[in-house]
């Protein structure tokens, strides 16, 4: 049973397929956990910490007088290249990399359709951060007060002056050598520290509605990107251009195209065109969640008599959609409360509920928290019906995930295939139930590592099956008869091959290792 939805447009669909293919390709080199494309947000945060750490040192040595800014920063690169120079280069390259991963993150989330419904808040709070990043980045370039800074300062103020905000053109501040004074750089440094602080606050807001935030990428990714920046710092250290001179027009300037691209764009078009682009893009990003998009999934429903207040759903929910409140009927007990605005409808909570066990003798299996579009009772019925019809020497049950490779094509005389909303929705007891009910092996297929549509589905499934997370698979269940196979959308063929290999392995190991409770039985 699945909810109806509007299909995404051709462009986002094509972008999604492109991202999926590149990510799958990157998985070959990096693996899911270390694939930078699957951890762009965390990577951005890591770059920000590099910026903060290196920026602190740069601030300590910076002299904010007109002559001092240029010479003190230049001194770092010339006299103290081994420390200050490298930190300066790290500051520059981390800021450029931050901009790159920020836009990739934005593009990826859009391509995957992650901007509406329960993700509305994260999307909307992310948009102003782009402005803060550019204000910080452009202002940072001014502090050096070289020719690039001069060019950027004049170009930025001329662009700002097109807006009807200032009674007097702000570009007048850079008219002649005597137009600026030492206080300018004090204010500039203050802004360059204040705006990134606002950015950090904004980022905290941005991730406020998700649990277990991926604050940092894996250690390997951190070391590798840091090594890349260090190599760049040594091979191509960040250096100042010639000192700024407001009496001269810098004829040719080295330009940071990630941060300062707006200036050539203004020269090429007009301030009106650039502001139209900036405000238009911002408005479009804000408006995107309000444009037609796929319907929201039905949210989880709590059944008060069956909720024992164990809080596992509250702990496992990737979007902090579940809170615990005093139970209305059971004294000293709690009950799960689902926040409709936060709920992704992923079903991970149903998989975490201890009442979701198919071994319960109720005719109709009602669990503490369930998904209306795919209740655990329906799952048990489907499993029982498919198990009853299985024939062949090695019967397999494949639990799949609607977000990953489609498992329904694997169904056959000797294979039962059930697709769930998310692999994390599968209560581990269903695996035991299948094995005790005649299946020779169980496959759990879901998104690739780091690519879970609902963030934590595959991670929780692995931990539950490895008995390190509640509700865990019982110790008696033979692990060799269970296979977890990550397979992304479109990787049906790869999944089929892996399932066939698993079947061959099961056939070769025979009956010897099977505990008595899991001995082969007829279901016919």
């Amino acid at each position, binding site marked *: 049973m699945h909810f109806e939805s509007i299909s995404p447009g051709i462009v986002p669909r094509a972008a999604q397929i492109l991202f999926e293919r590149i990510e799958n390709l990157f998985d070959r080199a990096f693996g899911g956990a270390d694939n930078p494309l699957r951890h762009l947000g965390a990577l951005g945060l890591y770059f920000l910490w590099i910026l903060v750490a290196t920026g602190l040192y740069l601030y300590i040595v910076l002299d904010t007088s007109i002559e001092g800014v240029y010479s003190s920063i230049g001194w770092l690169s010339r006299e103290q290249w081994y420390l200050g120079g490298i930190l300066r280069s790290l500051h520059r390259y981390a800021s450029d990399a931050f901009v790159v991963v920020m836009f990739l993150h934005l593009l990826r989330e859009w391509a995957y359709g992650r901007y509406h419904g329960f993700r509305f808040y994260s999307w909307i709070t992310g948009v102003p951060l782009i402005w803060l990043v550019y204000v910080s980045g452009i202002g940072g370039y001014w502090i050096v007060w070289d020719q690039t800074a001069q060019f950027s300062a004049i170009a930025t103020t001329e662009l700002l002056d097109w807006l009807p905000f200032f009674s007097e053109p702000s570009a*007048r501040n850079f008219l002649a050598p005597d137009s600026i004074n030492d206080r300018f750089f004090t204010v500039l440094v203050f802004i360059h520290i204040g705006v990134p602080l606002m950015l950090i606050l904004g980022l905290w807001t941005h991730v406020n509605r998700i649990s277990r935030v991926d604050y940092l990428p894996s250690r390997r990714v951190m070391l590798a990107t840091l090594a890349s*920046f260090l190599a760049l710092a040594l091979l191509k250290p960040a250096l100042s251009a010639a000192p700024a001179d407001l009496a001269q027009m810098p004829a040719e300037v080295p330009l940071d195209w990630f941060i300062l691209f707006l200036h050539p764009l203004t020269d090429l078009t007009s301030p009106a065109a650039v502001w139209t682009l900036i405000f238009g893009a911002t408005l479009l990003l804000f408006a995107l969640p309000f444009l037609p998009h796929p319907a929201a999934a039905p949210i989880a429903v709590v059944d008060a008599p069956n909720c024992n207040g164990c809080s596992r759903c509250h702990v496992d929910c990737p979007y902090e959609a579940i809170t615990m409140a005093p139970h209305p009927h059971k004294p000293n007990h709690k009950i799960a409360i689902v926040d409709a605005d936060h709920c992704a409808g992923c079903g991970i909570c149903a998989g975490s509920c201890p009442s979701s066990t198919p071994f319960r003798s109720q005719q109709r299996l009602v669990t503490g928290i369930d998904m209306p579009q795919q209740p655990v009772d329906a799952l048990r019925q489907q499993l029982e019906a498919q198990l009853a019809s299985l024939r062949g020497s090695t019967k397999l049950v494949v639990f799949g995930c609607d977000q990953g490779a489609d498992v329904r094509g694997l169904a056959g005389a000797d294979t039962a295939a059930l697709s769930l909303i998310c692999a994390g929705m599968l209560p581990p007891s269903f695996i035991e139930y299948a094995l005790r009910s005649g299946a020779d092996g169980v496959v759990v297929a879901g998104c690739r590592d780091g690519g879970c549509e609902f963030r934590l589905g595959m991670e929780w499934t692995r931990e539950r099956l490895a008995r390190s997370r509640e509700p865990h698979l019982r110790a008696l269940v033979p692990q060799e008869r269970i296979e977890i196979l990550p397979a992304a959308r479109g990787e049906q063929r790869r999944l089929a091959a892996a399932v066939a290999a698993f079947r061959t392995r099961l056939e070769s190991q025979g009956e010897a290792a099977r505990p008595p409770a899991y001995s082969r039985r007829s279901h016919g």
Partner: protein
Amino acid sequence: MVKPAAIIGQIVLYGAFAAFIGYFATNPTYKQIADDIALVKLSISHLGDRECRKRTPEELAKMPPNMRAPLECPRGRSDIKLVIELDDKPMFETIMHPTGLSRDGISSVYKRFELKAGSYKLAVKMNDNLVNPGFNFVKEAQITLKPAEILVIDFNPDRGGLFFQQGSAEKH
């Protein structure tokens, strides 16, 4: 255990990322003007004049004793007319309007003109009270512009009105 091919793949991809960042952090360089071009920046911010009228004794007598100011000055300011001539040919002409809902704010203009380096006769004329004909501020000078040099046309009543600035020195 990471396979050697995967390690090579990672080195290649991280290397490509670093090369991409490293290159576009400073390249290609941006050339805003051609080598033989100089810049004239016109930037004037000035409060237009206003026409004050002397009140007649009859008018003053009709007013409350504490309000009897001898001059009546309207709040609004005059538009400012500005003309620039280069080698006696018109180069730019504008009317600067006062800002503010009551037209009592400053009038501003900011423009950039690219000129080939060389010697020119530059004349700037300004009238800050359009009730009067002609121009009450005029500045003329023979200027020589080197490539990439900036000449600023500015106005400051404390510095004698209109003035040209080249480098850190004011041109008289």
